[in-house]
């Protein structure tokens, strides 16, 4: 299985990432992508993402390996941006390729639930000059518990 994990400040192109997963092969029947975007709720003006270099890649790779053990996957790409992002900007991409759609949907949702609760990223929100660290949400923990 091809795996690509990237922590980066720059934006990504979903079509290009799908093409990279599927290029030159004809055994892939399904590609599911999840794109997470910065929401401008409650007059949010910007968001800054911090991460733990080294641990982040390691943690994501472990979850990709776990997904690969659970479903018959043919390729996984995880891109997570860090740094300062404005409302509407893309934050994260999970793309999963498989022969059939069930596995691709399940693995993409699994990876997102685990990214939310285990990958060492932290978000600081800016509102009218004020900054505030985002609190973890119990609903994300509940979502991740589904897979245990």
């Amino acid at each position, binding site marked *: 299985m091809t795996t690509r994990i990237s922590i980066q400040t720059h934006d990504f192109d979903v079509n290009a990432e799908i093409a990279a997963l599927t290029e030159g092969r004809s055994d892939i029947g399904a590609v599911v992508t999840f794109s997470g975007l910065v929401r401008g709720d409650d007059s949010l003006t910007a968001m800054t993402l911090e991460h733990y270099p080294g641990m982040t890649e390691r943690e994501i790779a472990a979850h990709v390996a776990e997904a690969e053990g659970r479903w018959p996957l043919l390729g996984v790409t995880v891109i997570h941006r860090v740094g300062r992002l404005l409302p509407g900007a893309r934050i994260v991409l999970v793309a999963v390729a498989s022969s059939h759609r069930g596995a691709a949907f399940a693995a993409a949702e699994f990876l997102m639930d685990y990214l*939310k*609760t285990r990958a060492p990223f*932290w978000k600081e929100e800016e509102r009218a000059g004020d900054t505030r660290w985002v609190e973890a949400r119990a609903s994300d923990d509940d979502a991740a518990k589904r897979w245990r």
Partner: protein
Amino acid sequence: MTLVYFAWVRQKVGAGEERIALPAEVTTVAELAAFLRAKGGGYAEAFADDKRLRVAINQEHAGWDAPVTDADEIAFFPPVTGG
């Protein structure tokens, strides 16, 4: 040992990383946190409530009872909020 801090833990401590010699009486994460809390100032604030903190040893999630050694990289941070 290397200590690393993220998010508001980093801000309260006032540094993202520091090296300290492991004190003789410290054998677990919980004891390390208590040792740091006792330093007062920003440390006291950052470690005021263990329940608000998470820890990783050598870049893997760990529990509060996990053993620590002087060769470890120990990270303290709030619950993660990525994705």
